[in-house]
């Protein structure tokens, strides 16, 4: 599955509908008992859960590194993944799930720490940036071997970055920015030259763009690198059964092999969230990603489980089609509907959404309110970036009157046709009614949704973004007039200037201030109404130690081990 994410919801355990469902489940469970004819003990009583929601913890739990004395050597860890990763080629890969696998077998120049700060991985220090911002010098770790026995040096880094810049279909090209050349003054130093300053580059090198591929494997396999990927990592690729499982095994050549406890990790694709949880509880998997906010509280109460959680750096929101008349990639053209023409109508829509209520009632309070593309956990947050327009249906109606729109004003929203997205859409429908809107829900299948979105065939669209460390990657492409995913067709020279300045500035304080100004401007124009931020919920069995998640959403299993 791609990373642009439809909303994922939970069900509140206190609604009458849910009680009905429980009754249904009880009756059905009885029927199954009759079928199997076995005296099964009930899995878990669910009647006492209602109170649990209030006590659900929303603190970040990233997990601890494994204590070598408490884990045994060897064993296979099974991770239940919610979606099949795409190509296992760091240059071509585009899905979040491939990053789960890559972190075990393809290390990067830089990594992310649990505090979302960038730390060296295959590099030995953060890059030295020249005064004009046009040159980055990266010192490399020495004595590092690829899984095929080759030595990692500056030439290998050059080959990998060049591949990201030039390979047909590369997903890294835009992340790498305006690179003009890569120099290798000696085997342990890489110098990247830019045509203009590009602050997000270091963050990009802490993701797939910074993974170093074995030049021998690249030579041998070319564009088919994904069939037998070779990089530097605690594990190396072993096998893949498409759409079903991926296996990596311990790499004895890894420079820090003594820290690796497991023999192998198997990623098993299980798309349904309840079945993923069930696999975790049956012991068939020891780690499960993307728990639903409904399953998480129950697992939190289970003494054999830990639920890791971190707030996503992305968001879920509503995009309004302002000027995407002829499809993305064509010049924007102002649409002739009140919601496209008049920012007051969009502000009215925003004022009629009660984000607090949405988060509490639909997500057990596990997700958090979002009013801007900048997460409060980001290094780039500021007071201006966290301002939140209040829920005020009366003001919404007033704004609609000022805009000369007759109420109820009918707007059509396309959304993904999975049950969770539909529930969110229905909640929104009920909410905005009070503000004078009549929301018509048009559910479409995910690939069709992307198609309609790019063609500009929508009025309102519900979709989210999984988030990146650098705010540029969370804003520029979506609301910059030249942004590759500016599906709103938004065109504001002011915002463009602020974003470009922020992109080219190497002064963090200045960038923070500029992004604050971007948020203020976005809240006036409302091309995208930010609603909430998801929590990355990962279930981990206590039979395994050392599994961690970081704010980038990637589950770290490489240095985990089975408990003694």
């Amino acid at each position, binding site marked *: 599955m791609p990373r642009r994410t439809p909303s994922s919801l939970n069900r509140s355990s206190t609604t009458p509908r849910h009680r009905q469902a429980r009754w249904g489940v009880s009756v059905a469970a009885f029927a199954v008992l009759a079928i199997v004819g076995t005296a099964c003990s009930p*899995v878990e009583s669910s009647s006492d859960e209602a109170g649990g929601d209030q006590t659900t913890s929303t603190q970040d739990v990233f997990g601890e590194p494994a204590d070598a004395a408490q884990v045994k050597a060897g064993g296979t860890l099974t991770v239940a993944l919610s979606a099949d990763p795409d190509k296992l080629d760091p240059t071509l890969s585009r899905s979040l799930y491939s990053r789960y696998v890559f972190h075990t077998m393809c290390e990067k120049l830089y990594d992310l720490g649990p505090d979302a700060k960038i730390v060296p991985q295959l590099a030995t220090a953060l890059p030295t940036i020249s005064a004009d911002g046009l040159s980055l010098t990266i010192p490399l770790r020495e004595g590092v071997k690829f899984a095929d026995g080759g030595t990692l040096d500056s030439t290998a880094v050059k080959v990998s970055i060049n591949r990201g810049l030039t390979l047909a279909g590369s997903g890294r090209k835009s992340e790498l920015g305006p690179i003009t050349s890569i120099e290798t003054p000696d085997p342990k130093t890489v110098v990247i030259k830019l045509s203009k300053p590009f602050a997000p580059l270091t963050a990009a090198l802490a993701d797939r763009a910074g993974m170093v591929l074995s030049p021998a494997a690249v030579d041998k396999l070319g564009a088919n690198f994904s069939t037998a990927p070779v990089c530097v990592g605690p594990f190396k690729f072993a096998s893949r059964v498409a759409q079903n499982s991926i296996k990596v095994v311990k790499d004895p050549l890894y420079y820090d092999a003594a820290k690796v406890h497991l023999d192998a990790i198997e990623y098993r694709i299980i798309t349904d969230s309840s*079945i993923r949880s069930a696999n975790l509880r049956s012991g068939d998997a020891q780690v499960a990603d993307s728990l639903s906010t409904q399953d998480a509280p129950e697992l939190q109460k289970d003494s054999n489980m830990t639920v890791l959680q971190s707030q996503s750096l992305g968001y879920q929101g509503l995009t309004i089609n302002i000027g995407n008349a002829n499809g993305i990639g064509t010049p924007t053209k102002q649409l002739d509907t009140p919601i496209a023409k008049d920012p007051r109508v969009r502000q009215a829509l925003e004022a009629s959404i009660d984000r607090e209520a949405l988060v509490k009632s639909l997500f057990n309070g596990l997700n958090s309110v979002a009013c801007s593309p900048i997460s409060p956990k980001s290094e780039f947050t500021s007071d201006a970036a966290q301002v939140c327009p209040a829920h005020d249906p009366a003001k919404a109606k007033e704004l609609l009157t000022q805009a000369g729109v007759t109420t109820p004003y009918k707007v059509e929203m396309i959304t993904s046709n999975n049950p969770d997205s539909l529930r969110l859409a229905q909640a929104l429908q009920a909410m905005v009614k009070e503000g004078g809107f009549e929301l018509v829900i048009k559910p479409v299948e995910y690939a069709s949704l992307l198609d309609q979105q790019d063609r500009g065939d929508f009025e309102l669209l519900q979709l989210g973004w999984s988030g990146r460390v650098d705010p540029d990657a969370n804003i520029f492409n979506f609301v910059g007039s030249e942004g590759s995913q500016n599906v709103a067709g938004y065109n504001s020279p002011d915002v463009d200037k602020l974003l470009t300045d922020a992109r080219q500035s190497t002064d963090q304080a200045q960038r923070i201030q500029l992004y604050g100004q971007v948020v203020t401007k976005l809240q006036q124009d409302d091309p995208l109404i930010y609603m909430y931020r998801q929590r990355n919920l990962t279930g981990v069995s206590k039979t395994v130690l050392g599994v961690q998640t970081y704010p980038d959403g990637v589950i770290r299993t490489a240095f985990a081990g089975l408990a003694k």
Partner: protein
Amino acid sequence: MRRYLLGRLWQSLVTLLLATIVVFLGVRALPGDPALALAGEDRDPESLRAIREQYGLDDSLLVQFWQFVSHAARGDLGVSIRTGESVTSMLGGALPVTLELSFLAIVVASLLGVGAGVVAAVRRGRPAEWAANALALLGLSVPNFWLGLMAILYLSVALGLFPASGFVPFFTNPVDNLHHLVLPSLILGTGLAAVIMRQTRSSMLDALSADYIRTAEAKGLPPRAVIGRHALRNSLIVVVTIVGLQLGALISGAVVTERIFALPGFGKMTVDAVFQRDYPVIQAVVLVTATAYIVINLLVDLLYSVIDPRIRVRGEA
């Protein structure tokens, strides 16, 4: 005979070509394309263009179709756009899983269905029949997905009897392989078991009221022999026909079962490919399925002509 054979072969080829065209156009009529599904969140026009170019998606339909047919004729079904793997090797891995699962489901369904059907017929009007009927009703009406989930919750999570997911190839470890397939084949078999049970019951009732049964009873044969050797044997002909007819339904049921138990089968592969608009995989899957159907039909027709000479004669006329 040769003329008949050639005629049937020609018809089969035309059918296959038509099926190929329908699927080829059908998948391309779906909104969205593989480039969009592949790029997902991270898409910029340039990479979309590059992906489309790389996989020839920007060529005319005629060129794309010719590429597909000419490669397929040489046995090359292309590579998956999503994973970059060879479609032929994906099929080679997935087909045996689904075939084994379907075979085991038929075994489960036949044992359960025939057993319950015989009991229902012999114990007509008694609680045993009601119980068998109730089970059949449940088997027919409870969706596989829900049943699978409950089986995982009770038999895997609570009792730990069977694994909740995963697959081990038969030749790697036969015991482990069967252990992993117990739950999936039970779940997949329930629907078919219900159909078999209803069919067995009614043909058994017919058989039990037939004259030869009365004769057998009059000869003093024990009830077990009457039911087993005479009534059941004669009832099974219809049951076997039903099992054959239900094979298609079984394969489509396998789609759901494979998803629940994370089995690397044919059904799961097909559904995932449709969602991801992985054209080469969808085309290959349909091509293989259509070929299988056509070959089986052809063989059956040829068998008919061997068994019944009138068909052959008519074919030559």
